[in-house]
């Protein structure tokens, strides 16, 4: 049984702002932004909810890509964007509140940018 509808739509970074604006105009709320290191690239999932349906926009970026901030449309997104910067080292351009790496204080810089998964079969 699948609990609630959820879709993942891969998009180019250049289309991010336009897609987010469309969702905002359609009445979606921002549920989360999740970053994942997959091999040498990062997958960033922007999750939006409307009436219990989860719509995810996915961009795939390299470590040196600058990602545009969506705080112009979703004011509260700064918590996710600062977190993404502090844990993964993703550069976000144009945040409304930019903590410049001090939102989450970690002993190791960008601790989630390196994967040490063992990858063993069960």
């Amino acid at each position: 049984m699948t609990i609630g509808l959820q879709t993942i739509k891969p998009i180019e970074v250049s289309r991010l702002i336009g897609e987010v604006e469309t969702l905002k105009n359609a009445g979606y709320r921002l549920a989360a932004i999740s970053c994942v290191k997959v091999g040498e690239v990062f997958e960033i999932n922007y999750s939006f909810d409307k009436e219990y349906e989860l719509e995810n926009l996915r961009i795939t970026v390299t470590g040196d890509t600058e990602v545009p901030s969506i705080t112009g449309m979703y004011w509260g997104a700064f918590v996710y964007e600062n977190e993404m910067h502090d844990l993964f080292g993703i550069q976000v351009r144009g945040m409304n509140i930019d903590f410049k790496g001090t939102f989450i204080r970690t002993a190791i810089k960008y601790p989630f940018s390196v994967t040490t998964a063992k990858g063993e079969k069960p």
Partner: protein
Amino acid sequence: MTKQIVVPFGPQHPVLPEPIHLDLVLEDERVVDVIPSIGYIHRGFEKLVEKREFTEYTYVAERTCGICSFIHGMTYCVGIEQIMKIDVPERAQYLRTIWSEYSRLHSHLLWLGLFADSFGFENLFMNAWRIRERVLDVFEQTTGGRVIQGSCKIGGVRRDITNEKLDEMAKGLDVLDREMQELTNVFLHDATVKHRLRNVGIISRNDAYMTGAVGPTARGSGVAIDMRKLGYGAYGKLNFQMVTDSCGDCYSRCLVRSKELFASTDLIRQAIKKIPDGPVDVKVTGAPDGEYFTRAEQPRGELVHYIKGNGTKFLVRSRIRTPTLTNIPPLIKMLQGCELADVPVIVLSIDPCISCTER
């Protein structure tokens, strides 16, 4: 132009059991802006998926929070079960729902006590925590743990509750309801309490929705979202009315949590009546290969666990988005324009759990 000064609030403050820092920009006694700061105790739990097998990680996920620990473990398990297409036995789904609602009772009673303490009503604080002991006793009797239950696992639950014990729990709910009624009468009808909470820390429905408010913080502003409506566990088979209020102030958030106590006891009663006999777990083989966004309703609001596996026994990613993290932007909106003396009450009104946030 009035001179602006910055007053630091936290990370150590009498109303804050855990560290969060707010830079309050003041003009006289009025807060005009707020800059939040977290990250004092970030534990990096999410990174542990690389070193713990996906079956062991259930117990790591549970330790994200010391209050709604069961719901964290369950949400993680549901995510893995969805990826691996595991059909969890119905009895286990009901038991998960019962323990989830006891977690909500535990959390809301704890919060009511802390909230009373924040506005200086210490006797009320002690009463709330005295009643909460009854809930912790049930946890201890049914799982062996008062704070960390360790009873949820991938494919079901690790312990059953006998039908005799379930009947006893149902009788205990009557006592609990009576005591909670006396307690919430003070919160909702006492003139002093009402005066302290009404029209304080207001956030409009639109601001709450667009800044990402969840749980009682959203429902107190009339935003009707509750992830239990997704129907996970046994919620799809039980009836419950979502509690909302429209004023968006501290009193509304208190009212929503107070009424949710009785919604929880009602859900537990329904679950006890309907729980079928049968097994409580299924054998799990293989490893998760895929991804899933699981959402559940914690006492503080919508919880998101994003899980990604690659067919090995170690996950690629477990991302935990806790309700307090997303309730920080609405908190800033509530604080803008308030009086300095109201800040502690407003901060407590979102029921901040920094331990969750610093997973």
